[in-house]
């Protein structure tokens, strides 16, 4: 009786429809991911098609110009390098030290320590344009630092990047097993020595990975720099940290506003340069993670 009910046409239909629902569901999932990646491919191919023709040595070494055919990306790239140097110099040491303190030395359960942790987690999710407003109000209107300079841009981006470094740094430090600390303490090292001589070197690859990812994000950031006026028309590359400068994403934004058709090619070419840089940075981060990742 039972076996015949399994073989009844009714049951067969039911099973078939359940199996086809299964296949449909799987296909929908695949479709979703293919659609997302298809959009990515569409974006990259569009940029390559429009920009590849504009990539030559003159473009890579030139600076901004009103004439699309002589405009180049080096002026903005140098601005980016200077800005990133300021960002790295500020956010890396501060971020690592804060991560070490919070993970290793902060008294547990104190009210103010909780405040620090909550504000770090929230800062990591604050929209970047808010950091631009802070930079404008604090660095330019209050401290009167030079507008549109890599110094102010770098400081603004450092405030934005620091929480990212703190969070990844804490995870990396947390991943170092306690036995390392115990061993150091057992042979007479002080807590500070055990952290700086043993834990931190072991956590460094993880911290570096997080730092590179944070820097890559800062390198692609435009909105906060728009707020502090880093949209100078730079015909010669900036010479120092206080000169007016532009950065690469800003150059893309400024060129995208130009009416002259020649700038479409320039914009796409600059996007290619920026994306290549970002992918190189992310690739480096992945390489570091794979090479130095330790399974304890």
């Amino acid at each position, binding site marked *: 009786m039972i076996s015949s009910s399994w073989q009844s046409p009714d049951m067969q239909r039911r099973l078939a429809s359940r199996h086809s629902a299964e296949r449909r569901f799987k296909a929908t999932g695949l479709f979703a991911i293919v659609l997302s990646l298809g959009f990515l491919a569409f974006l990259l191919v569009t940029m390559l098609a429009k920009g590849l023709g504009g990539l030559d040595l003159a473009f890579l070494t030139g600076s901004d110009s009103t004439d699309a055919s002589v405009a180049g990306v080096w002026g903005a790239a140098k601005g980016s390098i200077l800005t990133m140097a300021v960002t790295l110099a500020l956010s890396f040491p501060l971020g690592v030290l*804060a991560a*070490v303190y919070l993970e290793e030395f902060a008294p547990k359960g104190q009210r103010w320590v909780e405040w620090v942790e909550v504000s770090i987690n929230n800062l990591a999710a*604050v929209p970047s344009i808010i950091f631009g407003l802070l930079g404008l109000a604090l660095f330019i209107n209050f401290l009167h630092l030079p507008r549109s300079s890599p110094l102010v841009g770098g400081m603004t981006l450092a405030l934005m990047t620091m929480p990212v470094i703190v969070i990844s740094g804490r995870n990396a430090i947390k991943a170092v097993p306690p036995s390392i600390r115990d061993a150091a303490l057992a042979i007479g090292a002080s807590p500070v020595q055990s952290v700086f001589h043993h834990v931190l070197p072991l956590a460094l690859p993880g911290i570096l990975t997080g730092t590179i990812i944070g820097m890559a994000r800062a390198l692609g*950031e*435009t909105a906060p720099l728009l707020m502090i006026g880093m949209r100078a028309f730079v015909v010669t590359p900036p010479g120092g940290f206080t000169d007016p400068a532009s950065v690469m994403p800003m150059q893309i934004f400024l060129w995208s506003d130009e009416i002259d058709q020649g700038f479409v090619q320039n914009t796409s070419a600059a996007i290619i340069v920026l994306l290549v840089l970002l992918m190189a940075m992310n690739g480096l981060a992945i390489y570091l993670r794979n090479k130095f990742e330790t399974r304890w």
Partner: protein
Amino acid sequence: MISQFVLVVVLGLGAAGWFAGRAKARLLYTGRGSLAAMPGYHAWHLLLWIVIPALLVWTIWAGISPAMVRDAVLADPAAAQLPASDFERDAILGEARRLAADPAAAVFNPLAAGLADTFRSVKLRFDLIGAALALLAAFAGGAFGYTQVRPDFPARTRVERATLSVLLLASLIAVLTTAGIVLSLLYESGIFFSAVSPIDFLTGLHWAPKTGSGPDLGKDFGAVPLFWGTLFIGAIIAMIVAIPLGLMSAVFLTQYASARMRKWLKPALEILAGIPTVVYGYFAALTVAPLVRDFAAAMGSQNPSSESALAAGLVMGVMIIPFVSSMADDSIAAVPQAMRDGSLAMGATKSETIKRVLLPAALPGIVAGVMLAVSRAIGETMIVVMAAGAAARLSINPFDSMTTVTYQIVQLLTGDQEFNSPKTLSAFALGLVLFVVTLALNIVALRVVKKYREAYD
């Protein structure tokens, strides 16, 4: 110039002190246990005693010397013919100061040109006094530190205590940044709200900010169309794209894809999150917006705008996909294996298990992920700046051009406006609203995630 010089000299002295301290400590070392700290710690202790007092003195001097320079310049006979009114006098002095720092600076007042030389010499005199004081502090500190290099001196504890206070200061930066954001937004919006009532701002339906003042000002600062545009683009259109695609990608990646497929597809999807927003914005304006416009025209719309909420929202949704996907991925992975096994053991197919068991169980985590995604979408700037348009309009037609909070902040604060008009300051009020909303979304979402994790642990 002088401050760089002071810095270099102080650091040089510090380095010299480091070697001197280490040499002295090494001489004191007579065998195991004869020194309370390793020579290296004595060296660092001495270095700190040289560098910190000197830099402290120099910083304090940099804080108080401008006022002294100003008094000295005013006392100079060259300043005798300056106007008596404080305001004009300060303007001329400021100009003279800029001229003294940079001879190529523009001059508007002939009096300032005459004063520049006086200013420069007075400033040089005070800088030299400061430098001398700083060096004195370095030597005094160094001398004291050098006498502390004794066998029984606990140099290591002192150096470690200094290290810990540096660590503490570094971790306080985050709190200071948050406080800085809150204070600067509150301060500037406070000035704005003294001219425009917050009620007009939060409930008004007309947005056409202009400079000037008067009782009617509030009528032009109604931000509701901006809030609507932000929500429509960031929380509706973008989420219609991102939630199904992100969720289904996560389901496919966690439940169906083989390990090898997952290894390639997941990083590929994450590239979407790594592309700078300005690139998305350019792509939206250059490629997607014309497609949307042509589509609107084909649908029979009259004069479709080339900037549309739909183009910006679509691209923003794509940007958010990996974000939603990874949040959903985490929540699905957090569902206990026993629930999945139970469902499969009852004869449910894989898709039935996902739809009836896994997704409902993971729902709180997914909702929290969507909230975080919304908070990211409404704070997104470059895509809307480049593709959404400037017209503040209350409309539910996705083909209309619409503006957002972030677009208006950029619009109001770029260009050369006078800084203290209500028009410019309204940007800070918009920033405050954005900050409060994203903060609330984040806090609620993080709390939901935490609670949900606890439920299954």
